[in-house]
């Protein structure tokens, strides 16, 4: 393959309010290459793409196109498109109420006497679809096509606009296996035509199925660029998570030696439980146990705990609490049974931005008590003050809106909310994401203290180190199912990464 560089980004830096989202990142794309852009959440993948497509202005660095010496400035997505850079997002940015042909030619319809030349448009669409082997009628309404076809049409549109750089941002997350394979065929075809493709995905299998090269980012910095053949899965996972096997430091665990739970009735026992978003799983959690759930993003960690909590409706399987079967199909059921759930997305599912700190703290307890037993003002104030004090929530007062607090303190408010309901089982989904180091350590300590007192805890975090420090038992997930369980001496970064990476390493 000829090594013509069609895109070269050098020293890209992007700041958000003084925080470096990208720091001195290089990225190179060659002609006819499928190049995976990998990294965990917050690594800077989407920021890099948004800088490239002109959504964000960059704060430093240079972008060169087509091997030219001259650096270019891309000010808007439209300009990026004019320069031959097209993006297809996970959520499709087309019009479902228009026909396939209209979508392909929107904003650049062939015209005749000032009117849209429908015949020509449909003909050209037909030819284009055929050349890319997409079997769909140009006159069909886009909304009637499957998501996969819609995505391919978005790609076809980009191709027809003479794009040289095609960015696919998580195109496969909503596709099934067959559809993914079709998409890959299309990608390979484009590759033969000399298009450079930047492929963003979380699925390792897919990277190894189609990509020629992998660039890994972590915490806004470039880790490196590797030919796919030279970077085995395990190494890739290690690069993404920021641990090299050579310098894997032994982590000293704060937690006690694992207690034996043999013969005890588990606090929670799931048998073949599943929802629309997760394959059947079985699980046991004991009293006073901190159970960790790990796996890459999209592996089903959150979906699993949401199913246990009833936030996603279970469709099959059974759940037992203290040995008794229970039916939980809504969060309130779960709360009544002593569960509490701190959701992953604090803004979307956690805080009530305009309500006060006090209201945010008491709302779960109040929901549990029902509408006809309102808490007395004094009780609310005391509860709020107690937890503001206990968790050291930094706030100008309990009556100010929670949105004026920092992210870490908002998170503490949500934790306070659940602790106030005095749960037996606390689910923490990424409780430490995006909050400062000090608060992180406080939350980790709190988890251990709560477990000490007999609370069972399910803990999800993207930081393996943090989980090793707190969990006595870990479940590893991949492709929306449990692929391994580790405990005791097996709880090492090394082992966990092996299981996450899967393949032959799984049994090792």
């Amino acid at each position: 393959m000829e090594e013509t560089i069609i895109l070269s980004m050098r020293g890209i830096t992007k700041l958000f309010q003084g925080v470096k989202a990208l720091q001195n990142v290089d990225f190179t794309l060659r002609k006819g290459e499928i190049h995976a852009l990998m990294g965990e959440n917050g690594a800077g993948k989407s920021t890099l793409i948004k800088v490239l497509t002109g959504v964000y202005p960059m704060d430093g660095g240079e972008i060169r196109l087509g091997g030219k010496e001259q650096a270019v400035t891309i000010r808007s997505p439209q300009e990026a498109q004019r320069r031959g850079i097209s993006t297809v997002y996970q959520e499709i940015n087309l019009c479902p109420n228009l026909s396939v042909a209209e979508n392909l030619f929107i904003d650049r319809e062939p015209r005749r006497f000032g009117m849209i030349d429908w015949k020509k448009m449909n003909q050209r669409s037909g030819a284009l679809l055929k050349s890319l082997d997409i079997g769909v009628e140009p006159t069909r309404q886009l909304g009637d096509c499957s998501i996969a076809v819609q995505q391919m049409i978005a790609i076809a549109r980009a191709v027809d606009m003479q794009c040289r750089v095609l960015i696919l941002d998580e195109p496969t997350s909503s596709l099934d296996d067959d559809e993914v394979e079709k998409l890959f065929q299309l990608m390979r075809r484009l590759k033969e035509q000399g298009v450079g493709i930047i492929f963003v995905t979380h699925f390792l299998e897919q990277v190894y199925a189609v990509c020629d090269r992998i660039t890994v980012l972590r915490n806004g910095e470039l880790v490196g660029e590797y030919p796919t053949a030279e970077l085995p899965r395990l190494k890739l996972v290690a690069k993404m998570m920021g641990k090299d096997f050579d310098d894997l430091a032994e982590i000293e665990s704060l937690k006690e030696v694992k207690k034996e739970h043999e013969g005890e009735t588990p606090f929670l026992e799931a048998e073949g439980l599943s929802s629309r978003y997760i394959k059947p799983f079985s699980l046991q959690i004991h009293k006073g146990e901190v159970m960790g759930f790990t796996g890459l993003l999209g592996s089903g960690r959150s979906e699993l705990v949401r199913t246990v909590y009833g936030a996603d409706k279970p469709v099959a399987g059974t759940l037992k609490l203290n040995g008794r079967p229970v039916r939980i199909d809504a969060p309130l059921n779960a709360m009544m049974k002593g569960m509490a759930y701190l959701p992953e997305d604090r803004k979307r599912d956690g805080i009530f931005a305009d309500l006060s700190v006090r209201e945010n703290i008491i709302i779960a307890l109040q929901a549990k008590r029902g509408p006809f037993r309102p808490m007395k003002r004094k009780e609310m104030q005391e509860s709020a003050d107690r937890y503001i004090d206990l968790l050291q929530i930094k706030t100008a007062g309990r009556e100010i809106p929670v949105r004026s607090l920092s992210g870490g303190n908002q998170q503490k408010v949500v934790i306070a909310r659940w602790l106030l309901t005095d749960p037996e089982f606390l689910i923490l989904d990424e409780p430490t994401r995006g909050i400062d180091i000090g608060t992180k350590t406080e939350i980790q300590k709190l988890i251990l203290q709560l477990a000490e007192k007999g609370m069972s805890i399910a803990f999800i975090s993207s930081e393996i180190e943090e989980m090793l420090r707190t969990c006595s038992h870990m479940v590893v997930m991949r492709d929306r199912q449990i692929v391994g369980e580790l405990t005791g001496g097996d709880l090492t970064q090394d082992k966990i990464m092996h299981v996450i990476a899967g393949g032959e390493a799984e049994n090792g």
Partner: protein
Amino acid sequence: MSSRGVKRKMASQKASLFKRITKHHLFFPLVCLAVVLLANVIKTPDFFVVSINGGVLYGYVVDVVNRASELVILAIGMTLVSAASGGQDISVGAVMAVAAAVCCEILSGGAVSTGAFQNPLILAVLAALLVSALCGAFNGVLVARLKIQPMVATLILFTAGRGIAQLVTKGQITYVRVESYKIAGGYIPGCPIPTPIFFAAGTVALVMLVMKFTTLKLYVEGVGINSSAARIVGLNSVRIQFVTYVICGLLAGVAGLIASSRIYSADANNIGLYLEMDAILAVALGGNLLSGGKFSLMGSVIGAYTIQALTTTLYAMNISSDQLPVYKAVVVVIIVVLQSPKFNQYFRSFREKLHPGNSVSRKEEPSS
């Protein structure tokens, strides 16, 4: 210590009081009301004069408070609906007509006009309220369960409601010419205060009590601000939104009965006509976000009185009823601009300038 320090302390206390007042959520609604009232006094100097005429209170201000009653009651329901669902119920005017039709039809026993109750009054009132609550429930199902946009969902009854009322009264204006039927819209014998005022005050008090003894406010605000988070903490957002629509329908029914009592008839075409728009406006004037979330009932009540005061003023200025909307619109534009976030920003920076240094200013002061 010099007196300067003391003075400064006093100044800052005064400033913080000034700030506390201007920052209160009812500040703007009250200012709007005050401005409208002031205009009234200038235009009609005897605006606040209340006299007793024929055993009842008489005067512009009494008239405003009396006439605003239906609007106050509607505005309360509208506030709850807006807060919980981030949308408005535009069918309340039509539901008023339905309630009036049902009530009058039962009382007249199907006749066009009646001089005596054909059925017990209590039965007619309960039936009317039940029907209006059902209308609210219908809207509630469409919005809360089927997730139809509130404006679209309530458009159904907005258009069909008056038709239903016509069907009930067989296309006639049904008259109930019984003295006791006129009480709700007129006067209780021996009482100088118009009865609608009691209804409005009673409704406000009742809803306030409900909010005190249940968690309605917290639940409604929670669902309105973040329905996804509300679900996670165990709130049933479908049920909560549904309940607000039922309450809104029920209150529209109460307002419909008062309006019907005023004219001792059920006029399906005119009862509550365009009142839904005034009710929505009252909510907005009260400083409530039409997109849902935190709400203030008192704000909406003040908003309702403001609108009625405005209408009365315009009538007093001899503006004909068909030109009324134009003048109303002008005033509304001014009030809405005053409440806009951008204007508030200017106002805040103006406040900072007036009392610099008493709060943390983000802007660096230029060194002199």
